[in-house]
C-alpha cells in the first residue's frame, strides 16, 4: 500500500509542480508583455529612450529567469524570444528610427511570448 500512496503522491507532486510552473511562467510573461506593450505605446509617442529602457528591463527580467526557462521549455522557443528581444532593442537604439519595423518586431515578440504560455496551459487543444 505504501508503494501505491508513494506513486500517487509522486504524480500529484509532479502535477502540482507543473501547475506552479504554469502559474510562474504566466506571471513572468505577463510582466514582460506589459513592459513591451508600454514600450510600444512610448514609441507611438516618439519616446524612443523610454521604450528602450522598458525593453531593456524586460530583457533583464527574461535573463534572470533564463536558466529556469532553459530547463523547462523547448530551447528553440526561448532562443527565438531572446533573438526577437535583441532585434527590438536594435531598432530602438539604432540611429535611424523605424517605427513600423519596430512595431512589427515587437508584435512578433509579444506573439512568441503569448504562445509560450499558451503551450503550457493544460487545454484540450494542447493535449490533442
Amino acid at each position, binding site marked *: 500500500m505504501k508503494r501505491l500512496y508513494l506513486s500517487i503522491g509522486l504524480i500529484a507532486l509532479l502535477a502540482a509542480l507543473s501547475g506552479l510552473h504554469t502559474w510562474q511562467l504566466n506571471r513572468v510573461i505577463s510582466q514582460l508583455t506589459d513592459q513591451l506593450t508600454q514600450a510600444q505605446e512610448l514609441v507611438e509617442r516618439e519616446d524612443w529612450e523610454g521604450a528602450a529602457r522598458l525593453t531593456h528591463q524586460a530583457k533583464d527580467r527574461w535573463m534572470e529567469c533564463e536558466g529556469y526557462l532553459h530547463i523547462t521549455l523547448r530551447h528553440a522557443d526561448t532562443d527565438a524570444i531572446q533573438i526577437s528581444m535583441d532585434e527590438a532593442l536594435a531598432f530602438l537604439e539604432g540611429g535611424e528610427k523605424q517605427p513600423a519595423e519596430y512595431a512589427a518586431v515587437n508584435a512578433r515578440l509579444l506573439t512568441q511570448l503569448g504562445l509560450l504560455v499558451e503551450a*503550457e496551459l493544460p487545454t484540450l487543444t494542447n493535449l490533442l
Partner: protein
Amino acid sequence: MFVVLIRTVVLYLFIVVGIRLLGKHQIGQLEPSELVLTLIIADLASVPMQDNGIPLLWGLIPIVVLLALSTIISVLCTRSIRFRALLCGRPSIVVENGQVLEAELKKNRLTLDELMEELRIQGYADFKSIKFALLETNGQLSVLPFAAEKPVTAAQMGVSTQETGLPVVLVSDGHLLEHNLKGLGYEPVWLEKQLASHGLHSYRQAFLLTVDEVGTTYCIPKKEAAK
C-alpha cells in the same frame, strides 16, 4: 510541463488498452502494461538524448509518471481480482479434452497453425493427449495432458528418491566462487579432492563445478584441460 504530464498519462492508458485489445498471443512473456512500459520508456529516453533542443526534464517527467502509473496498476492488480482481469485478461482454454475450441482461438486471434506450433514446441504432436491447453495472460501456452499421458513419477512407482536440492556453483569458467564454498561449509582440501576425482589439478582447469545438498559434484572440465 502540465501538458507533458497529462499527455503521458493519456498515451500510457491508450497504449495499455490497445495492447490489451490486440490479444494475448501478441504479447509474448510480458503483461500488457509491462509491455507498454518497456515500449514507451525506451522511446522516451532516446528523444531528449538525440535532440539537445528538448529539455532533459521533458524526458524525465514522462518516465517518472510512467513508473508511478505502472506501480499503481501493479498494486491495484494485486489487490483487486476484477481490476486484474480487466487489465490483464483471464487465461483462455483453447483445447479441452482433446478438442480445439475454435471460438476461443478466434477470440484470441490465434491461428490453428500457431497453436500446433506451440504444442509441438512443448512436445505434443497431436491434440489427443491434451486434457487442457490454456493461453495464459502473458501470451504463453500451458499444456496439461490427460492423466494417462503424464510421465510416471517416482512416487507413483513407489521408488524412494533422495532430495538433492539446488546445485550450487563452486567454479565458474575457471573462477573459484569462494563465497559459495565457505557458505556450504566446505574446505579447499575437499575441493581439491573433488577436482582430483574428475582428473583435474586446479579449479582453473574446470569450466563448471557444482555441488548439490547431498554433496554430489558435477564437473565440466575446460577444453584445454580435457585435452
